[in-house]
Each structure stands twice: as C-alpha cells, then as structure tokens.
C-alpha cells in the first residue's frame, strides 16, 4: 500500500514527532507505538523535516497509462445561453498553446451546445489547431451528466494528454464528472501550469486551506484534468497567420438528458468589481462596519469601486460579489489600494496581476508588502482621512 511508513528506531524524540504533521495525522500511543492515521494527506512534510530515515514515502504504481498514446492539449469551451463564448476560453487557449509548443503537441477546443456560431478565425489566432463541435438541440442547456457523455466520447477518440476546463460554475460541476468517468486526476483552481517533457502537467494551487501552495501532478493517469478560474491567465498574443480545422462531431449513441430544463434566467446586471479600473479593498484592518465609510469615500473620490477580503463577507459587512480572491472574484484593475489587508495567498491569487498595487497596513511584515508596488506602513484610520483631506484641498486649489 502506498503511503508514509515509519521507522520508529530512527526517532529519538517522540513528542517532537507528533507536531511534525500539519494535519495531526501522526499518533503516538501511551505505550510508545507510533502510527499514521487516515488524516494523512501525503504532503511528505514528515519525510522532509523528520529525522533522517524516520519517515519513508512509498508509492506503488498500480497501473500506469501509456503516456505516448495520449497527446495534445484540449480546452473545454463553455458556450453561454446568451449566445456568446465564455471569455475564459481565450485565456486557456493562450496557456494551452504555450504548453503545447514546449512538447510539440496540438491544441484543440471542444464546444458543446446548440446553434454554436462558427467563428473559426477567432480560435486559430488565439492558439487552437482544431475545434471539435458537438451541436444538437439536446445539448442546448447545461446538463453535467449529458455533457460528461460527450467529453468522454471525445476523450476516448482523440486521447488528449491534458484537458483544461474553465473554473466557472458549469466547468466546476462538469470537470469532476469527467474525471471520475475516466478514473483520472483533476486539480481545481490552478494558478500556474507547466509541462514536463514526458507530458506530465505541473499544477500549482493554494492548498490545504492555508497560506501554502502545492505542486500537484497526475503521474500515472491520462488525460490530466485541471480547472483554472477566469482571469488567472491572460489570452496569448493573437497570431492571424495561424489556421486550423473546424470539425463537426456525431453524437455518441444512446444519448439522453439526465435533468429536465425548465428555465434559464439571467441574473440582474450589477456593476461588478472585475469591471472597475480602480479598486479600494478593505480588509480586517477595519474594526467596524461603520468604518468602511472611509474606504467608500476614498473609492468615490478616485472614481473606483469598494471591494473587500473574505472575512468582511463572512461578517456580513458587504455583499459577496465584492469579495476579491480565489473564492471570490479575480480582478486586474489599473490601480488597487489594499487597506488593512494582510495578503493571504487566497486573497493575492485573485488580485496579483493588478497593474499598480498600493498597501496601507500598520504591520511592516505583512505578506501584502511582497506583492504591493508601494507599501505605506501606518494606521489606516489616520492615513485615509489625511489622504482624503489632501485630495479635497487639491481640488479646491
């Protein structure tokens, strides 16, 4: 059985060993026996940081897919009921092209829906070599099991090594079904991707609910699935000289819907923080809901929007759509001013590509300083009012 194995004879301090595991999976019984419980996440921190040889990682290769049979990178495209392509497609195509060029793969795009407009040039210039279209009235509305039938059909015929899926609500519902159907790995919300010469996909994401990143691979299974949120990557430089193949695919036999569609409803349009050029982000440095008036005034003065970190949403101070971060919105404004924000990975994953980042924080060691262009060390309750006064005086002159 693969996992972590213990060599107790190489351990000198049993008390210390208990604290080695960030998941508390190392159990020392009163009689001195030591074991690893099912809380183990195989992060290998004990192997790395324990006494030499005390913890050993063993991996059994149960069955390995022949990687040479699986070639190419596929992007699963989402087609919206509004009749538009979800823009995350172009970001994924850009990344797919970059990875494919490293290992000599082709890039394909799969589109599922009904009455999908054919605008091939758009996809060739963004990096696709082939577009596979499954177009039928039955496929008009999103149905995870039905769409998984289609992706399975595609994957078994075309055998892509990698399938990238947009981390949209539909993508996040479909990708796991596909992964389970094909008995393969899926890594959610990757923030970085790279590829090895042997086609293993390097997937980086924040992990274990903490301020840490994990590097994940799917070493023995194909295809390798990953989801990536909208606006994490940028579309590639369009190359108008590129050309490709537009292919209509037959539906697999015996296809049927698993759910009955009743209605699709567009949500009321609201001004989203993603669309704003200037964002003032409030963090837990604000002590009370009422104090947010400072951030709001600054946003108004600069013609920007107010946004916030997750704890403020959890406290019910602002609407969820104002949350920046991995579990909120990804933003890339021209200017972002973080006020009383510590800069956790989950937060920065959603804003680090902003063009100009300023931070106001009284802690000179806050992690936000590592990604801000300019950090102002001090109390936001003094700096923001001073800044507002400055702006006012400037305008009156």
């Amino acid at each position, binding site marked *: *059985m693969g996992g972590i194995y213990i060599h107790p004879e190489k351990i000198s301090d049993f008390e210390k060993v208990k604290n080695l595991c960030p998941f508390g999976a190392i159990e020392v019984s009163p009689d001195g026996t030591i074991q690893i419980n099912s809380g183990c996440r195989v992060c290998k921190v004990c192997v790395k940081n324990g006494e030499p040889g005390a913890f050993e990682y063993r991996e*059994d290769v149960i069955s390995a897919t022949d990687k040479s049979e699986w070639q190419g990178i596929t992007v699963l495209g989402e087609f919206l009921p509004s009749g538009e392509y979800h823009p995350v497609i172009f970001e994924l195509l850009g990344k797919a092209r970059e990875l494919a060029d490293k290992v000599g793969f082709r890039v394909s795009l799969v589109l599922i829906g009904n009455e999908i407009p054919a605008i091939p040039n758009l996809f060739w210039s963004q990096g696709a070599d082939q577009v596979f279209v499954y177009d039928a009235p039955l496929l008009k509305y999103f149905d995870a099991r039905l769409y998984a039938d289609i992706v399975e059909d595609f994957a078994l015929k075309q055998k892509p090594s990698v399938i990238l899926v947009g981390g949209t609500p539909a993508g996040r519902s479909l990708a796991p079904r596909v992964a389970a159907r094909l008995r393969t790995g899926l890594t959610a919300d990757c923030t970085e991707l790279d590829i090895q010469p042997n086609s293993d996909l390097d997937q980086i994401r924040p992990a274990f609910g903490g301020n840490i990143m994990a590097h994940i691979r799917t070493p023995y299974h194909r295809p390798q699935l990953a989801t990536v949120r909208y606006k994490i990557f940028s579309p590639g430089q369009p190359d108008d000289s590129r050309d490709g193949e537009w292919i209509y695919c037959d539906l697999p036999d015996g296809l049927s819907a698993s759910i009955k569609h009743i209605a699709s409803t567009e949500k009321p349009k609201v001004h989203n923080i993603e669309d704003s050029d200037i964002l003032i982000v409030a963090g837990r440095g604000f002590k009370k809901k009422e104090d947010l008036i400072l951030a709001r005034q600054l946003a108004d003065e600069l013609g920007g929007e107010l946004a916030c970190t997750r704890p403020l949403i959890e406290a019910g101070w602002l609407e969820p759509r104002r949350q920046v971060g991995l579990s909120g919105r990804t933003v890339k404004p021209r200017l972002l001013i973080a006020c009383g924000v510590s800069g956790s990975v989950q937060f920065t994953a959603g804003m680090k590509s902003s063009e100009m980042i300023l931070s106001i924080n009284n802690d000179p060691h806050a992690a936000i300083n590592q990604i801000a*262009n300019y950090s102002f060390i001090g109390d936001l309750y003094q700096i923001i009012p001073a800044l507002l006064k400055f702006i006012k005086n400037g305008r009156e002159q």
Partner: protein
Amino acid sequence: MNIIVCIKQVPGTTQVEIDEKTGVMKRDTGSAKMNPYDLYAIETALRIKEELIDVQTTAITMGPPQSEAVLREAYMLGIDHGILLTDRKFGGADCLATAYTLSQAILKIGLPDLIICGKQTTDGDTAQVGSELAEFLELPHIACVLKINSLTNRSLEGVMDLGDFTQTVELPFPCLITVDKEIYEPRLPSYRKKIATRDRPIQTLSFSELPDQNPVHYGLDGSATRVMRVFPPVHHKQNQIFEGTPDTLASEISKILIKMKVL
C-alpha cells in the same frame, strides 16, 4: 424517503503557514469543526424532513476517528443516523479516491433517494467530491443549488447557479445536489437534542465492510493526483516601503495617484 448528507471535519483555523527557514508547516491542530458549507447541506435535509412525511436522514463522513465529532453535531441539529467511514487504508485519498470510498459506503448502506453535499470544503476547497460521487453512483446531479422550488416523492425542482445566470431544472430521484449558502439559513445545534442523542450510536464502516474489496481503489493507491511538494508562496514584485507620519504618507500616496492621472 431517505436522504444522505455528506459532511466533513475541517481544521478550525485557516492559519496554516510554513516557516520559511525550517520549512515546517504550522497549524493549530487542536481545533476542528464541521465544514461550514456542510451546515447548509444538513439544513436542506432537515427542511425536507419537515416538509414531507416519513423522511429518514443520515449523515456520513470519511475521516480519522475524531471526525465522529461532526456526526454528533449533526445529531444535535436533528439528523437521525450517523456513519463514520474510517480506516487507515483510506489515508492520503484525493478527491477521486474520497468520492469512490463514499460511493462504496453508500452502496453498502443502500442508495437513498437524495444525496446532499456542501458546495465545497474550506480545507480541500475543490468543490469536486460531490460531482465525482454522483458520477460513481451514476446519478444525475446539479451543483451550487440556490433554491429548491418544489419537491415530491419522485423529484425536485431546483435552481442552480451558473454565474451570470441561473438554470431551473427538474431532477428525478435518486439524485445528488450540492447546495450553496443562499439555500437556507442553518439552525443552531439544540441542547435538548444534544441530551436526547447522547447515547445514540454511530455506525462505523471500514474497508473490510465495503463491497469493493480491492485495496488499490482506496487511499493513496486509489488517488490519481500526487502532491509533489508544498511551499510558501513566492512573489516577485519590486516593492518600495514608506514609513512616516500620516500626512507624509498621504502626500506620498497622492503623488503616485497624480502620476497615474487618477487625481
């Protein structure tokens, strides 16, 4: 009608950090709690129980023995049965192996009419286990359900969140849903129920009781993904730090804003 709710115990704090010098991860392992999203899943099951007659609710969790605590909490909220799925062989499971193990346990106790999962966990944070579980059980599913419009003994009509729009669908039983926070406001655990369920047993299931006895389908062996390493986040930005009185800092900020033509 039978409902199964999948719940998970997660660390109470999200403050796991790596000490940059020693590379040791630090976490307060003492505190653990129910995954907050799973409270909404439990609440949904309880609301259905209140609406229809003869509904049995079961909570199931896979994890180390101490995860029993979340099943006790489920009892205090009003769940009828609790199942703890625990075995060393399940350790190191990724989403695929977790969902597979849950599916085997559900086949063992009997497929219910409805399975309810939380939208995501706060530690794994993948929002994958629910959909993968539906696939292993070959059930239709919808994720991120915002609202249940109506319900009969044969099907439910629910509204799923798809970003800029919602989709209302009818889903026949048996099926699986993952629920979003908007669905209902979760109730608080009841002291009366705590006393009343104090001696209520919790059923434990281990590898040897599951239908599929091939050990390579579980735990690390049954997982397709491997964590190569964990590391603290790295940043590359050029950073300039300003210190001084609020007025000096405010004037430095406004200089930047003027240069950017924001002011």
